[in-house]
């Protein structure tokens, strides 16, 4: 009993934050039905592409959670941006401009979140819950309760499994995800802004005592996160080729879960970009593996639920060992 416990801890310690991910991948790699296909390059590419959207939102969510907030409107924000891109294209805008409209819309929703939270001194949960309804409602309004069809353009090439200039190797969406992960990691760990966000999440009063302009930082945090959601919306449009106001319903919980699985603490002050990406991939590989196994959805739901708990438990074991 003792021995297995400590052995487990050792393994957990070695694997670092990747332990949950490795566990998931290992399990599926040993399933005879899919073992040859699961770790195959094409499949990994496809999982990576599927992760882009959640990952982009989760990057922003990490920043928010680290600073002690939460954003329930992320998924609705994404849907709004997705619809607006299609709308803008139909207005005759060039695709690049349309994409910018989508990103900007996301940023605006984020800005509004930050503004309401700091000005009205409301808890982020409530503000973003309200905004979740508002953004979703706006998306449906713009789309007149339907999805918006838009002519195909290069925008829709961003999320293909096999990218057009083949030297790209993976889809532009994946490159964007990598790029923004790096940017956000640097922002969080290497800039004054990131340090201030962390300090606010850790103890807002202390941050204020130390001259951190907490309100400004918070507004910036929500705006950045909003921009990333907007970008995720563009990617969603790219994937769907239509502007769909009902897309990503309930995805906010997946996004938050990814951050928390990756070690983020909802009481603020803790979280890392690497951890979040691991969280995103744990969930993506789980879904992918379960689908490939052809397991029924309820089984998949049960397994994913159990693995979320298990992954975090392992992470805690590792921490306790330190």
């Amino acid at each position, binding site marked *: 009993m003792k021995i297995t416990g400590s052995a487990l801890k050792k393994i957990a310690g070695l694997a670092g934050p990747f332990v949950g991910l490795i566990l998931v991948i290992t399990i599926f790699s040993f399933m005879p039905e*899919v073992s040859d*296909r699961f770790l*195959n390059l*094409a*499949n990994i590419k*496809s999982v990576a*592409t*599927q992760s882009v*959207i959640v990952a982009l939102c989760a990057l922003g969510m990490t920043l928010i959670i680290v600073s002690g907030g939460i954003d329930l409107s992320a998924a609705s924000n994404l849907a709004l941006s997705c619809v607006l891109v299609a709308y803008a294209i139909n207005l005759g805008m060039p695709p690049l401009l349309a994409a910018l409209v989508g990103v900007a819309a996301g940023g605006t929703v984020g800005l509004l979140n930050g503004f309401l939270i700091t000005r009205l001194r409301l808890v982020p949960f409530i503000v973003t819950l309200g905004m979740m309804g508002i953004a979703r409602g706006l998306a*449906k309004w713009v*789309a007149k*309760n*339907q*999805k918006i*069809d838009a002519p195909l353009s290069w925008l*829709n090439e961003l999320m*293909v*499994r096999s990218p057009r200039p083949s030297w790209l190797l993976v889809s532009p969406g994946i490159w964007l995800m990598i790029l923004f992960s790096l940017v956000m990691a640097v922002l969080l760990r290497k800039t004054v802004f990131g340090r201030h966000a962390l300090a606010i999440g850790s103890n807002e009063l202390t941050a204020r005592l130390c001259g951190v302009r907490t309100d400004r930082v918070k507004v910036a945090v929500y705006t950045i996160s909003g921009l990333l959601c907007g970008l995720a919306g563009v990617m*969603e449009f790219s*994937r*769907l*080729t*239509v502007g*769909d*106001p*009902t*897309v*990503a*319903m*309930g995805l906010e919980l997946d996004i938050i879960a990814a951050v928390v699985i990756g070690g983020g603490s909802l009481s603020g002050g803790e979280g890392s970009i690497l951890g979040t990406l691991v969280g995103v991939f744990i969930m993506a590989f789980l*879904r*992918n593996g379960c*689908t*490939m196994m*052809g397991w*029924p*959805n309820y089984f*998949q*739901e049960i397994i994913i639920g159990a693995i979320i708990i298990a992954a975090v438990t392992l992470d805690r074991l590792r921490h306790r060992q330190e």
Partner: protein
Amino acid sequence: RPGGQQSAGSGARTYKLAVIPKGTTHEFWKAVHAGAVKAGQELGVEIFWKGPQKEDDRAQQITVVEDFISRRVDGIVLAPLDDRALMRPVDEAMRDGIPVVIMDSNLQGDNYISFVATDNYQGGVLAARRLAEVLGGKGKIFLIRYLEGSASTTFREQGFLETITKDYPGIEFLVKDQYAGTTTESAYQLTENLLSRYPQVEGIFAPNESSTFGALRALQHYGLAGKVKLVGFDSSAKLIQALENNEIQGLVLQDPMKMGYLAVKVLLDHIQGRPVEKRIDTGVTVATPENMNQPEIRNLLEPDFARYVR
């Protein structure tokens, strides 16, 4: 074409076919499932039944299709949640040599093997005629919609709406753009709240099983079942009972089992090199309290799928 080659090489191999519905928890899809399994058993192929994890989630359905492409199944039957969004994954599958048959709802373009479906617009038209018939061609009604952007139900709603407006000037819509959402409970609450506002309503049309049942429960709750005429879509045990009790005056029925069966069969025909038709209609019928005991209607109301799916 790897699938084709292998089948040519070794006849012993069983084909693995993925059947992807829009969701997994409606009675309708259960019957489709049964049809697919039946075809699987009869034709000796293995069926993977797998919908998006969240009902009616387009993005997740794309993921499911992609995952099956990764798995390299021999063919896919897909009920697309969106006529556009699913185009690219289907293109990718076809390009990778995995043939795709579309069922239930349409897909834009024609890069698929065959389209097996009910004529949903026609279903809406039949529903409109039936409701008009029981109302005697005049009255105030609700059109309860299902979900924003859902193609098949939108066609039904459209067929209903256009027929009523065009052919029955005596019928007036009190409500025609409220959405019930995906669950029975949400449809229930919507209808309740609408009944609160418009107690003068005389007829209701709901375009699928969950919204029909939700509306029925609300009418029962208000003691209006049977007084307010209800025409719905699809069937389930409770709906059949209500039909028997004359609480529902009409149910537009598709033949989901036939749809599932034909889709798989057509797909296999194609894989094995037989010619297939591009469009296959599975038909719609209206069940009423009067005709519900005719054997062919009974069969549609309660398709015998217990043999195929538990």
